């Protein structure tokens, strides 16, 4: 599930549930629709309610990063827990997005 929240140049995407190949495709579509309409300068992907994620989550972030690149936007990943962090680190996502862990 995806909750979208946008204010000015900022789009906050709150992802809820497991991310795998199956669920990611629907999430992708919803996020990209919103990005195309809003053309935000900053995209925040909030992972605090993602309790499981496989490498499909990497594809999800990288794809959104590429889209945001088109109009020089930035991507931030928030609420990353121990497990999702390990996957992101494996992929070196830190070089394309700011990663913030859960407090």
């Amino acid at each position, binding site marked *: 599930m995806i909750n979208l929240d946008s204010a000015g140049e900022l789009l906050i995407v709150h992802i809820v549930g*497991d991310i*795998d*190949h*199956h*669920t*990611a*495709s629907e999430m*992708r579509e919803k996020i990209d629709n919103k990005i195309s309409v809003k053309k935000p300068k900053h995209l925040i992907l909030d992972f605090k309610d993602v309790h*499981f*994620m*496989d*490498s*499909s989550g*990497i*594809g*999800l972030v*990288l*794809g959104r990063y*590429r889209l945001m690149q088109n109009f020089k936007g930035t991507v931030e990943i928030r609420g990353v827990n*121990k*497990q999702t962090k390990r*996957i992101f680190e*494996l*992929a070196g996502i830190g070089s394309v997005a700011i990663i913030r862990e859960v407090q």
Partner: protein
Amino acid sequence: MKNINEFKLIIESKGVNEAFSRAVVSAFVSPADPTIEELTDIKTAVSEAVTNSIVHGYKNSLGNVYIEGSIDENNVVKIKIKDKGVGIEDVKLAMQPLYTSGDDNRAGLGFTVMQSFCDRVKVSSSLNKGTTVTLTKKIKGKAL
């Protein structure tokens, strides 16, 4: 080592079964009292392999995915994920980090995830016959 429990599961190559197979493996391993991290490692590796069978092996057409699991007296968990799909021409290449034959939603890191979350990943594949991935991981379990 003698197995203390084992199962065989046949599922269809449908996206919803990625979550189903994770849940099955998780329920199977739970009596060995794994840590949350160990359990997540196994679920993640299984999710990668099952997804590969669905997405690459059967290219999203319908086929069966065969999952066999065992746990032995030393808490070594083995999960075998098999498909009768297109197979992999060059396994060594396929296992390279970032290599993918998929679209840009695939990161090419499935095998890398399996390898970093399991003790051992064995892949055997033959073209137009199918692919078998065997994941092995020893559960240390919770300290008492």
